[in-house]
Structures are given as C-alpha cells and as structure tokens.
C-alpha cells in the first residue's frame, strides 16, 4: 500500500475530466449545454479544469425559454464574460413569438416547445455531434438508467432499450452520420456532491441559491416567486408575502418553486442538503407526471 488516496469528490472530478476529454478527442463538433444552474456551473468548472491551461475547445449553448429568472440572465452574461467563454444563446423563437406559456398551453406542451424543440433546433443548427449536459443519475429514476454517452437517433430521441453497454472507462464514441450523443460527465455525482464541490472549489453560482427575503406566493406546499411584472400569475385570494427562501434547483420562473430556508452561505446550504427529506426535483412542476422525464427524454430532451 503506497498510501495514496483520493477523496470521493476528487475521484468523481477525475472521472468527469476523463469523460470530457474523451468527447473532445472522439467527436468532430461538441458543444456544452449550459442552463446557468448549479449542475451546469459544476460542469463548466470541470471543463475548464480538463483543458487548462488551454481555453475551452467548445462553445457553451444556452437553450433559453425566455422564462428564466432575471438573476440567471445577469449571472450568465457576467460570468461568461469574466471567464472568457464563447456563449451561444438559442431558443424556439417561433413558439416564443406565439406566446407559448405553461398557464394556457399546459406545462408539458410548453416544455416540449421551448425546451425540447428549442434544444433540438439549436443542436441541428450548430451541427453538433456531441452535447454535454449536467444531468445526474440520482435526480430521477429514468435518469438512473442513463448512460454517460447517451445515444440519440437523427431526431435526437432516446431509446432506453437501445443504449450501448459501458464497460470500464472505455466509451464508444463511434456514431453514424446524423446520429449524436448526449454526454453526462457528472452522471455519478449526487446533489450533495454538487453542493460540496461548489463549496470546496468556490464556484460562483446564481444568487437565487442563497436564502434571502423574497416576495413569494404561497400555493399549497409550493412557494412561487412573485414578480411585479407578472401580476397575473396571482390566483384569487393570493397575496405575495416576503418570505426567507431560496432555490434548490433553478428552471423556468413559472414552473420552479422555492423552499423556505435561512441558508445564506455554502456551509449552511450543504447542511440543509444533508438534512433534506425531499428531493430537489420536487420543486420542479414538470417532473410530476407518471413517466414524465422518461417521455421527455424519448422525445429528445436531455
């Protein structure tokens, strides 16, 4: 025994860097999906580590639904500028112009148009053959069966029964013209690992993850952030209240809830994550259908 030991976070980091480098070595035109959330922040940090001292050999792609929190847009623009990465922003402009929204059209249709179709269009436009995503297997039960290299047909669709076995750390990057892969370098990370790593590495994240008095609408178990410009989201009898709260996960503002919290720094967030009794996806309205994530992935979602 030579006494060398890697902590579990450093072991996960090494695995993720290995995966990111394999993709750059084996694919013609990779891109990194960047959603501005905490998992994306970790993914981007790992990518910077992978190629240091060289700059990132690929662009970031933000598929924008137009419904992200304004703090997310501010953070995205400032941070990407600061670290000097190439950011591409795309969205399903057609659907946005037609006023697609979850209230009128339903959550499934809105997600399908703005996220899934927006993503597929952007990937096709860029001609990318590999797209990195920050999905984790611990997030959701269909994701628990996802590969690191997730094969997609020419329509970007996932077939859970037709995925390649992944042995050792030998990833098969051979694809036919038109096919692509979605690559998930942080597959083996848990929510807890992500928070711990952000804390350890001092990775900048959107301020919405930290607790603050914020105007909120209380609806059943959910805390829905209230914005002056969207007064019409109030239902009868609801009034916004200032509530000490934060977000465990960030998505679109109409469909992402906050949680009551007093965690204003990373140490407190980690403690809260460790004591959490409910999964982070619970605050995401989109996940709550019977096979919701599995269906979305089959249609081309990441």
């Amino acid at each position, binding site marked *: 025994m030579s006494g060398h030991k890697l902590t579990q976070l450093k*072991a996960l980091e090494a695995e993720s860097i290995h995966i990111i480098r394999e993709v750059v070595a084996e694919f013609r035109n990779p891109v990194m999906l960047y959603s501005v959330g905490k998992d994306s922040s970790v993914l981007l940090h790992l990518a910077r580590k992978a*190629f240091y001292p060289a700059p990132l050999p690929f662009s970031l792609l933000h598929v924008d639904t137009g419904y992200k929190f304004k703090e997310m847009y501010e953070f995205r623009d400032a941070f990407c500028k600061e670290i000097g990465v190439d950011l591409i922003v795309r969205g399903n402009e057609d659907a946005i112009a037609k006023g697609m929204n979850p209230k009128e059209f339903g959550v499934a249709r809105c997600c399908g148009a703005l996220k899934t179709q927006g993503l597929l269009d952007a990937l096709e436009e860029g001609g990318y053959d590999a797209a990195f995503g920050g999905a984790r297997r611990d997030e959701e*039960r269909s994701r628990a*069966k996802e590969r690191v290299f997730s094969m997609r047909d020419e329509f970007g669709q996932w077939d859970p029964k037709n995925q390649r076995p992944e042995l*050792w750390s*030998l990833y098969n990057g051979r694809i036919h013209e038109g096919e692509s892969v979605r690559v998930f370098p942080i597959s083996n990370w848990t929510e807890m690992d992500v928070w711990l790593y952000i804390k350890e590495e001092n990775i900048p994240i959107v301020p919405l993850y930290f607790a603050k008095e914020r105007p909120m609408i209380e609806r059943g178990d959910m805390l829905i952030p209230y914005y002056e410009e969207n007064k019409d989201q109030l239902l009868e009898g609801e009034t916004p209240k200032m509530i000490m709260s934060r977000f465990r996960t960030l998505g679109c503002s109409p469909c992402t809830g906050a949680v009551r919290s007093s965690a204003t720094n990373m140490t407190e967030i980690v403690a809260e994550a460790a004591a959490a009794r409910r999964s982070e996806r619970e605050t995401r309205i989109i996940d709550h259908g019977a096979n919701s994530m599995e269906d979305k992935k089959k249609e081309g979602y990441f």
Partner: protein
Amino acid sequence: MTELNLDLTKEIELLRLVTVGSVDDGKSTLIGRLLVDTKGAFEDQLLAVRKKKGETKIASASEIDLAMLTDGLAAEREQGITIDVAYRYFATPKRKFIMADCPGHEQYTRNMVTGASTASAAIILVDARNGVMPQTKRHTHILGLLGMPHLIVAINKMDMVNFDQATFEKIRQDMTDYCAKQGIKDLICIPMSALNGDMVAVRGENMPWYEGATLLETFESLPVLDDVDAQPLRFPVQLLNRPQTAELPDYRGFMGTIASGTVKVGDKLTALPSGKSSIVKEIVTFDGNLEEAFSPQSITITLQDEIDISRGDMLVHSDSGMEPKKEITANVCWIGDEPLEPKKKYWIKHTTNTLKAMVTEIDFRTDIHSLEQETADQLAMNEIGQIQLKLLKPVYADHYAANRSTGSFILIDSFTNNTVGAGMIV
C-alpha cells in the same frame, strides 16, 4: 439507521459496488432497503412508490414497495422486471457508494458485465429458499473472469426459512466450493432479510447465531482499490494540450488519466510506440502544478524535450519493459445481438486507442453450467469464450489480471457501431 454524513469532503473514499442475482432474489428490494436505511432516497421519492396510495407520511420501510424505487423505466414496472443497469448512490459517515443494480434475467447478462466492470466489490443475491442456482454460478463465473476483487454473497429471504442457520451454512458451503473451482478466495457470506432489514444496515434480532459483519459494515471495511497506484505507471495519452495563445505559444502538454501507478516530476518516461524518452518537466492541473500524481487522477504532463506523441500513445517509466502486441489472446463476454464470428473485422478500443482487429480463432466457449470448455464456431450474446485477435497495428497492453485498465478492451461492430464485446487480455 446510520447517521447522516455531513462532511463528505473529509477523507471519505468512493467504493463502487455491483449487485447481481436471479430474477426473484430480491435485489431491487435490497437496494431499496439500503437507500431507505442510509437515507439515500428522499421522502417524495418514497411516497411515489408507497403501497397504499393517498398516505402522506411514511411510517416504516415495510409500507414502501422497495422494488418500485429502483425499477425506473415504464416497461420495467409494467412487466415487473429490471431491464437495465441502474446506478444508485448512498453514503455513510465513512464512505460514499456507487452501486450498479444489474438485472439477473439471463438475456440481460451483458448488463451485469457492464455494471461489474467498474466495481471493486460484487454482491451476489441468493434466495435462501432456492440455494445456489445455475444463474448464480454463471454470474459468479463472470465475476471471476472480471477479476472482481471482493465477492459478497447475500443470502437473502432468511425470513422465509425461519432464519434457519443450517440453511445458511449449506448455501455458504455450496458457494465456497463453487468459488474454489473458480479460483475466487475472497468470499464473504451474510445471511439477511432485505425486506425486514435484518443484517443489512442493522443486525436485527432474528439471527443471533450470525457473528459476522452486517452488509453495510462490510461495505465500509472493504479496501477501495487493489493498490492500482502501487502498480507500474501506465499513462494513455488522451489529447494534446496546445493552447497556442500569446502567453503560451509553444506549450505542449499531454492530457490523460493515470490508469495505474504514480508519476513524479523528474521521472524518465518513454513514449510508446515511438520508444523516445524524456524527463517529466511539470505535472499540470488547474489547481496548480503537482510534484507527484497517482491513479486515477486526470492530469497534464509536460516533458523537457519535444517528442512526437499523440492520442493512443502511452507514457510509461523507461524501465517498464513493455512489449508491443499485434496478436492478443483474450477472454471475451459477447454482448452484441449478432454473434461473434471468426474472420470478421471489428473495431477494438483499448485505452485511448481505437483500431481495426480481426478475430482469427475462437479457442473455446465456456459452458457456464459445467464450466467445461467446448469448441465453437461463434459466440452468441451472453456467451463467454477465449479468442485470438489479430490487430492492424501493435498495442501496448497488460494482462487483465495484472492491470484492469490496460488489460481490458471493447469490440465495436464496424457496421452498426454498437459495442458488442467485452474483452480481457489473458
């Protein structure tokens, strides 16, 4: 119940596990039990799989359909089977675990090979009522081939045999005898009831005759790695790092993951296949340069001299004595839909090298039940045999038994691009 782990950044190591077993051995239930007892599953995830709908609180684990927690795909829930490898995560104050949950059904053996390839320990589920089944033997044999460092036999459903010690002892003896034939020595047998939780995270009160460690205690005490950093250095080059920026116009680094061994600044390295040598100038990481690095770190190495090195090459210590191999003898587990056929060309991916290869011969196929070697003209899916491979170009490889990273490869069908074979160099 174990305590929550608040500080996973301490000297907490990662242990990768795999569970295998026959269809009804209760594997999903065991994993569900581990998740519940280590709080690796959240309340809303548990509520989604409770037996009685409409409840909003979970009073005890027995109210949860534990298997439903791990069967993630709609088709699995419809058919009540597990189709695909699922990865689960849990932690104790001592360790973090990644567990691959592999289907036991015969046609899905390839998934078991997949899950087992990265694991340091395997848990084989045996139903105490049925004892050692043919499928148990098949899995044990494959685990032996995969060089699984530690085997844990979970003799489950002890509640169905009145927690009878003699039943446990009989199965333990059968497994010990079978493993001896396979050359597997490190075997741990634990009686348990995944449904009740006995001997999983807690001892329970039903088996006072068993004095060994519980399953979770065993997970916490197994060695994480088989000393891969004490092995000779193997550094397969993934990519060249050439920033070509104003600050770094001439920088040339070699990026890769240390497959085994350690490397220090000042070490004399040889690049294979060119055979050219140089001295390690820097070990570069985003967090600063290192004096020394070890497996499985991902690093960038710069050398004192400019030598031509590209992806697929391997850096080793100059006294490694590694020889190129153009012909390889390997055990292969076939995982493709179309059978393996001699004279057919495949792509082989070995470390960071992908090249054409031809199967020149099938030496034998192993009958999983009798372990007899028999002649064969092809290997169908889920079959195991020994083959001869001829490579287009020589590679630098180790025996799988000596080095899991440089001794393993995958075969890729050159028409479909699917991964069809898992190979271990003999």
